[in-house]
């Protein structure tokens, strides 16, 4: 069976459990050819599932670089 495996090139288990982006709901198949046509880029819009906004419970913007346990943000899970 083709059961989608829970992992993401952008957000993984090292990130806050509440970090979200569209790709987590859309589950597109990563395109192996994509970076033959341009370099890597990240056009992703992130949000926090607790606040349902692009700002976290601490009022700061949501991003994989900061939404990590062990960082300065106290709101992470």
């Amino acid at each position: 069976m083709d059961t989608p495996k829970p992992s993401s090139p952008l957000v993984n288990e090292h990130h806050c459990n509440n970090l979200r982006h569209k790709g987590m709901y859309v589950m597109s198949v990563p395109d192996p050819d994509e970076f033959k046509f341009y370099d890597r880029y990240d056009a992703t819009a992130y949000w926090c599932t607790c606040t349902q906004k692009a700002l976290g419970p601490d009022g700061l913007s949501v991003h994989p670089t900061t939404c990590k346990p062990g960082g300065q943000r106290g709101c992470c899970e």
Partner: protein
Amino acid sequence: MDSRAPGPGAGRRAPENAHDRIPDPGSRSPQVAEVQAPARPPQHPKYPWPEKPRLIGTRISRLDGPLKVSGRAKYSYDIARPGMLYGRILRSPHAHARLKSIDAAAAEKAPGVKALLITIKPGDKILYPGEEIGALAAATEQQAADALRLIKLEWDVLPALATVEQAMRPEAPQVFTPANTRRGTAQEDGDLAAGFTAAAHIVEGTYSTQVQTHTSLETHGSVCEWNGDNLTAWVSTQAVHGTREGFAAGLKIPQANVRVITEFMGGGFGSKFGPDIQGLLCARVAKAANAPVKMMLDRKEEHLVTGNRPSAFARVRAGVAADGKLTAFDAQTWGTGGAGAGSDYPLPYIYTFPNRRRTHTDVYINAGQQRAMRAPGHPQGCFVTEVLMDELADRIRMDPMEFRIRNLPAPGPNAMWAKYFPMGAERINWKSRHVTGDPAPGPIKRGLGCSANRWGGAGQGARAHCEITADGSVVMRCGTQDIGTGNRTIMAMVVAETLGLEVSQVTIEIGDSNHPFAPGSGGSTTAAAVMPAMRVTAGKARDALFERMAPQLGVPIEQISIGVGTVVVSPSTRDSLPDGPAAARSGQPPASRSISWRDACRLLGTVPVSVDGQWERGLSAGGTSGVQFAEVEVDIETGITKVKKIVCVQDCGLIVDLKTAETQCYGGIISGLNYAVFEERILDRNTANMVNPNMEWYHMAGPSDIPEIDVVLVDQPERGVIGIGEPPAVATAAAVANAIRNATGVTLRSIPITPDKLLAELQRAGGTN
């Protein structure tokens, strides 16, 4: 890809951004499944696409057309529940401010008010106009609006950043933590210095694209109704399952207690993937008021807070050799996705610059945050690169289409530009193109331009449940949604094809989180995720039907197959699929007999066929390519551009419904046309408040602005289904910009190409009359 030639980007290195490094996956499981799977098309699906389809690839009218044209389709905005209240959100009138005091006493006591919720306290800061700070519900919309205005707020208004220039100034106030900008790491490949040395000509310039808002006609919002601890929410969303998950997480309740329904949905374009803050507020005031609440945003709120496409800027230096080969590309890029959100985009786009370097910087301003919008990043990268391409072509005096073809990456089924460019050229009469600057007398200048696009569009993971009952009914349930693409219709086509029925004989039930899981509709992945599930599930249902029939008919199951509106019992063994290869081969017509679908189903008695199925490999793929051409007329005395014609050559794998697929292309092109010349979120540079949060000054093409559109859809049945919502939206703006340049002889490096920009450039180039 062609295996003989290394891909043009074969040497492209990944950046060193932390979040781009992929740690070893697969230990614990987050709540949301996201997929890492090999995308290689698979080999022998059990239920392959028919070789000679009866319905697939034909033109079928939308199944929900009659409901929509008669006004009887009920959208979330149209839902009315007994005792329903109306909710409104309290929002910040400022772009950047700290709350001093709040007094909601009068609002709480106002007529009709049943619940009021304040989510901000003195000392808290807001970062963009319209940021949510509370909500209330009242018996009528008017009472809700009246009460909202009774809430007294005092603010310390803080300096706001309205433009990227303001945010990037060294002396700019630090509004965002840790900084107003976030600089990415340079991506480099090849030898930049050598590339520029090899260049015969170098073009330098700064390119830019605007912020556009999604402007879905149905605004964001929901109707929330509690039954004890269970929430039913009618939501305008592109993801019923994702929205269920969002409600549960935001409200801290079990997902089992949440049901999300989206029967019809008035457009999302990437901006509707969860309940959003307004969904949570709606559910919370509904709980507090102990009554259903409808909370749909108004147009102004929609513009301010529900997402947008980030702006893009690119300071580019690029070189071309005398033989027309690109040599070097060096770019600093930036843009804003609003308050703390990113703005990256792919660059250079498609064409092969062997030596290149690029650094992107996200710039934050006090404005609503970006969200995914119809091919996120691609229109920006396409515009910057494609306009540059025309400038480079002119420097070496080469036809811009030839120049493009010369610099394409290696061809493949997902990279067919070299074939499509001449096809499009034929249809736009590219031969008639003059060199840059229409020499014809008079103020009306005509021009042609072209550009290319690509997109992924592969989906997976959809599940479905199919029932066939003794009366011949077929019901397919799937937790997907039709956001206007025609998903419901193509689902019915695949099911009907598989069961030998007409689409009208199939009932498709979607838009409900109680149905089997299917992913959200974004990234042009829905068709590729859902159609395989339809084929497999309907195929399994058919097999189950045959299994039940066989003993009753006293024949082996191998002898039963599907006809047209019939089940066929033939003495010879044949492939189980009616339209499979074996069927095509079987020449002899022995004494087979047909049983009508109804009669066959009658054998089921009181126990229906009831099977589950899901997406399987081999029936869908990703990777599309396309080209577009534009013909424009520019009035150089007024700066007004009239787009006369767009030609689009686009592939999308196996085409299910030619009619709705073409409409997707029309829609994408019109959105690209808006991007090229009309729409723009305009913020007051001093307060960062949006001055055009309406549909009057937020310009969008109306009927008289729509050009002739000629769509050529390239069918690639061997690739399986690929989504087409986004690909056609990518290239239009660049093609139009290039056509304007060809017409006028002036280079516009900034969209939208409004009369002020065009006239200023014309003036610079020597006046207009």
